């Protein structure tokens, strides 16, 4: 079945002439339409693009005419609703941006379109990417394909539900503190958060600018490598983008196989803080099995102490909220999006627009951000958190000087029930307890599907590497995949 194939398999089918792009895109569209009729639809997309099949037909014509030099010509991708695609609507799943049309494309989209890819549609998310369950969406939640009463994770929950539910072969998400890896873990996918700077942030709607990064979700490490290679590279429009070269990923884009990493001699650190006594038994069992597998392949897995990690969620929520309160100040009803009606003065218009347009969780974070930045609290919270971040950078660098990878569970639990944490923000925030440190430390981090709970819920394991060592993460994940996911 087309909808069960990986991007790389679809690419092979196109190259050998066994498939057409129109067949591929139609298969995903039909799957989307069929799902939308179900009693509990996945809610993966907020819009499926009507013209995607027509775009696919055009790609097929180009291929027939011998103009198939774009490496990913005619292959579809789902796009999170906070990444600009020129001429398309974009809302960040917020009432605030209803009616907004993207005036330009993000650099990552520009590069993927240049490589021949076809955007399938916009995927559901937590409003402005703030949330861990995809429930803070103005469209209603996305659901987990493994169990529709559960969350697919957030904030890129729609992207994960689309790929895991057979509605897209691969998807773009975005991360500020785990928003790609958590959904990957909950939905049984591979999810990559690149190093800060590997992918341009131009055209990704800003949330926490020192943490944000576009990420990828797919069914195999090779699929992530292909899309990553096509999208990576320095962008003059994002001063924080890096000119790093990724030759192994680029070779995969050019048709080579993703090499599997030999684990012999690989030094891996497991922070004690991330495998606590009270870790949920099923997560613990899956994680231990992965460690045994890595050791059996010759890796040195060492338990280390990294106590600073215990502060990572607190630092993260202070800094992310502070940056968000500043970034979201632009939504004022003047230049785009919602404008409250019947406001007498300019300030009334600002206040009413922001109160009507933002959902509860976004308002909460803006408030927290303004609070930690306000005079009297700035030193105690914001400035202190910045200093602790510096300490975390130093301590994590110390560990990664001696070990190539930091290994942990991706999340403390498998996917939880929809509705179970929505009234308890702190419990929701703690879903990110193992993920935020990689964003704070600017490191690449990957979640791989490591096993299932007794109820059949996916459980992920997270590999975090040195800055710009995306290829190490991908090739280690490839080793795992080739061995049948350890099973």
């Amino acid at each position, binding site marked *: 079945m087309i909808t069960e194939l990986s991007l790389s398999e679809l690419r092979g089918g196109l190259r050998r002439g066994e498939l057409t792009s129109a067949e591929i895109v139609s298969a995903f569209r039909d799957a989307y339409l069929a799902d939308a009729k179900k009693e509990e639809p996945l809610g993966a997309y907020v819009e499926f693009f009507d013209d995607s099949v027509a775009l696919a037909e055009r790609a097929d014509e180009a291929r027939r005419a011998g103009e198939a030099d774009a490496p990913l010509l005619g292959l579809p991708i789902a796009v999170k609703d906070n990444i600009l695609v020129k001429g398309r609507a974009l809302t960040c799943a917020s009432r605030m941006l209803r*009616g907004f049309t993207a*005036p330009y494309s993000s650099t990552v989209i520009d590069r993927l379109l240049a490589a021949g890819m076809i955007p399938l549609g916009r995927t559901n998310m937590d409003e402005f990417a703030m949330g861990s369950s995809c429930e803070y969406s103005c469209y209603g939640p996305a659901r987990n394909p493994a169990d529709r009463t559960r969350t697919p994770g957030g904030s890129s929950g729609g992207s994960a539900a689309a790929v895991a539910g057979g509605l897209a072969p691969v998807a773009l998400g975005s991360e500020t503190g785990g928003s790609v890896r958590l959904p990957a873990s909950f939905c049984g996918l591979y999810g990559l958060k690149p190093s800060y700077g590997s992918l341009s942030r131009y055209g990704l709607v800003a949330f926490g600018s*020192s943490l944000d990064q576009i990420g990828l979700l797919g069914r195999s490490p090779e699929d992530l490598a292909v899309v990553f290679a096509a999208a990576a590279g320095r962008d003059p429009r994002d001063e924080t983008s890096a000119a790093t070269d990724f030759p192994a990923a680029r070779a995969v884009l050019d048709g080579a196989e993703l090499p599997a990493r030999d684990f012999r001699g690989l030094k891996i650190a497991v922070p004690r803080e991330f495998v606590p006594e009270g870790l949920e038994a099923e997560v613990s069992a899956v994680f231990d099995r992965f460690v045994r597998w890595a050791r059996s392949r010759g890796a040195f897995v060492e338990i280390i102490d990294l106590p600073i990690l215990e502060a990572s969620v607190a630092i993260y929520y202070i800094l992310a909220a502070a940056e968000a309160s500043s970034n979201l100040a632009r939504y004022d009803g*003047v230049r*785009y*999006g919602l404008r409250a009606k019947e406001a*007498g003065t*300019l300030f009334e218009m600002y206040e*009413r627009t922001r109160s009507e347009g933002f959902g509860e969780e976004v308002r909460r974070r803006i408030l927290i951000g303004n609070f930690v930045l306000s005079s009297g609290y700035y030193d105690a919270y914001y*400035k202190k958190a910045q200093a602790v971040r510096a300490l975390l950078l130093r301590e994590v660098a110390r560990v990664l000087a001696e070990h190539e990878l930091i290994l942990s569970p991706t999340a403390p639990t498998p996917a939880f029930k929809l509705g179970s944490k929505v009234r308890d923000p702190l419990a929701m925030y703690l879903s990110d307890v193992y993920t935020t440190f990689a964003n704070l430390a600017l490191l690449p981090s990957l979640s791989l599907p490591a096993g299932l709970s007794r109820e059949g819920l996916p459980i992920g394991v997270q590999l975090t590497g040195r800055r710009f060592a995306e290829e190490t993460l991908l090739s280690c994940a490839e080793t795992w995949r080739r061995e049948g996911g350890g099973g």
Partner: protein
Amino acid sequence: MELKELYVTASLAQLDLSDEEAETLSALVGQMVEYFSTMREIDVENLEPTTHALLKTNRVREDAVVESAAADTLVGNAPESEGRFIVIPNVL
């Protein structure tokens, strides 16, 4: 967080809070702020705060005209416009 403090913060953020919302929020935000204090014990003496995650120097580019999103498209996103002007309520 005290209710009064919450209202001040909300007005700084240009957010309007209903009394009911303020009650629930003050408990929640208070809970968050208490959680944040877990990092207050950490010793960061002699550490420079990371004011920017990465950039130590400015990058410069040539001062040249480059094509960017067309102004009309940008203005076209405004909720209310007249020609190429964006209409807003009275300021004075």
